[in-house]
């Protein structure tokens, strides 16, 4: 009789365990709020017009105004270049991971999917990354650019927080879409011959 009761108790506890771990707790945890990072940035462009051979500076200060971000990315792309070469030099870099240089033809993530959806890079870019980034921490990414041809020199800047759990997890929120189908802020400098 005692043995029977112990077995019965054991099976009831097991049933309780399976219901709790497979049905109840997963449902509860899935209802908890996801972290929402909110990256933004401010840029200072040293010149809007230069003479060919001169340099200009682009200073970017980014910050995460939302929740803790697993990854905080600031991407700077150069749609008028074929390769970065000596045209762009990093002057200041305050991110936890080394900068990543992306060349034309490389497979890159798109649509804020973090790499789940991909596309092919049509122009070079540099990605600065911090993993993780706590709220309200500033990161600095300053570039010195020396264009090698005259004309309009464009620079695309954007920032993305991962998890990309909301429309505010990227910055800017609207505007021009780049080759990754993601919004960018455009800075242009006229390079005179």
């Amino acid at each position, binding site marked *: 009789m005692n043995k029977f009761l112990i077995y019965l108790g054991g099976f009831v506890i097991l049933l309780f365990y399976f219901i709790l771990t*497979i049905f109840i707790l997963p449902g509860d945890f*899935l209802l908890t709020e996801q972290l929402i990072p909110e990256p933004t940035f401010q840029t200072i462009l040293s010149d809007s017009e230069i003479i060919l051979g001169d340099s200009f500076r682009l200073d970017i200060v980014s910050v995460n105004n939302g929740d803790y971000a697993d990854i905080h990315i600031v991407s700077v792309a150069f749609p008028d270049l074929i390769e970065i070469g000596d045209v762009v030099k990093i002057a200041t870099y305050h991110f936890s991971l080394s900068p990543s240089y992306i060349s034309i033809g490389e497979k890159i993530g798109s649509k804020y999917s973090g790499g789940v959806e991909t596309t092919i890079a049509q122009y070079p870019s540099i990605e600065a990354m911090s993993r993780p980034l706590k709220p309200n921490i500033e990161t600095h990414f300053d570039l010195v650019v020396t264009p090698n041809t005259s004309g309009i020199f464009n620079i695309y800047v954007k920032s993305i927080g*991962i998890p990309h759990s909301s429309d505010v997890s990227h910055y800017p929120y609207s505007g021009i879409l780049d080759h990754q189908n993601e919004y960018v802020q455009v800075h242009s400098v006229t390079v005179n011959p």
Partner: protein
Amino acid sequence: MTNLTSNLTENFLKSRSEIIFLVGSILTSFGILLVTVGGSWDITNHLLSKPETFFSPPHALMYSGVAISLTGVVLSFIGWKNLQKFRDSYFLSLKVQLIGIGLLTGAGPLDFIWHSYFGLDGLLSPPHFTLIVGMFLCSIGGMIGISRYLKFNNSESISKYLLILAVIPVWLSASGIISSLSLPFSSTDFFEFNPEPTIAFIIASLAYPFLISLSLTLIFRLSNYQFGLLSILGGLFLLIYSSTAIIPNFAMFDTIQFYSLNLIPFIVADIFLKLNRSKFSLFFVGGLVGSVFYMVYYPYVMYTYNEILLGKLVSPSLIYFVYFELIQTVLVYTLIPAIVMGFLGVMFSDRLSKKILMN
């Protein structure tokens, strides 16, 4: 005077040789335990991209573990060389420990050369796999040595708790082998060592349940059916996994309550085997503990199943969301194979325990 000292040392070694061999085997197992704990912690740090230097706590734990294991194997060798009885019986343990430590220490320079040529490597690479196999063999050697000592010396119940130290490194290092063959953490700039997702799915679904069942029923048999060891072994595994894979990630801290519930099947299995250790009861226990592998290997096992079932980007704060999103689907696919592998674990533990105990 020199001759006298030499004779005294020789006499001491001969009279204490079996104990020296046991201490050596214990140190080998304990060292591997530290390496596996450090390794699991290190994987978590890499996933969280925590700043890492050579002198990080997980690395310190791993290198201390290697040093302790090396000392253990040397002691085992000294003990075995001076054994007056059971020399042949302990040779298997020594042989496996020696091969294991050879691979383990050889993996260090190999890893250095690999890093020099190919930069950072992932979880699965030739040097890492050499290291994990070395750990596994060392822990097997230590387990055989400890188990045989306890058997030959008719050790009392209290000494049988040493079997926990003997089996847990085997469980953890074998888990390391399965993880490296199934987790998608091995893609680098030079090599794509990530396992093919379908094969990884099959490996994880079959090997983890088999291993849990094998480890738990093996300790039960090696201890001559002692009550409590199964629960303690299972509990220790959960404790190590939670403290190295869950607690370091603050986003998952709340899920500790979910993970700690996994002690329930271990305790119930232990009680059922206390009441009845028939074949049927053992098979029930094997099937039970095999069926809960997805919960026991929380959270990282999710990465294997995500590859094929969801394909989501999983950043550290999303780990448990994706894990819980998948739990029911994974169980639908894996429950029956997991139970069958649990049965196989029981059958294999029967043969293995007989071989270890020379019955």
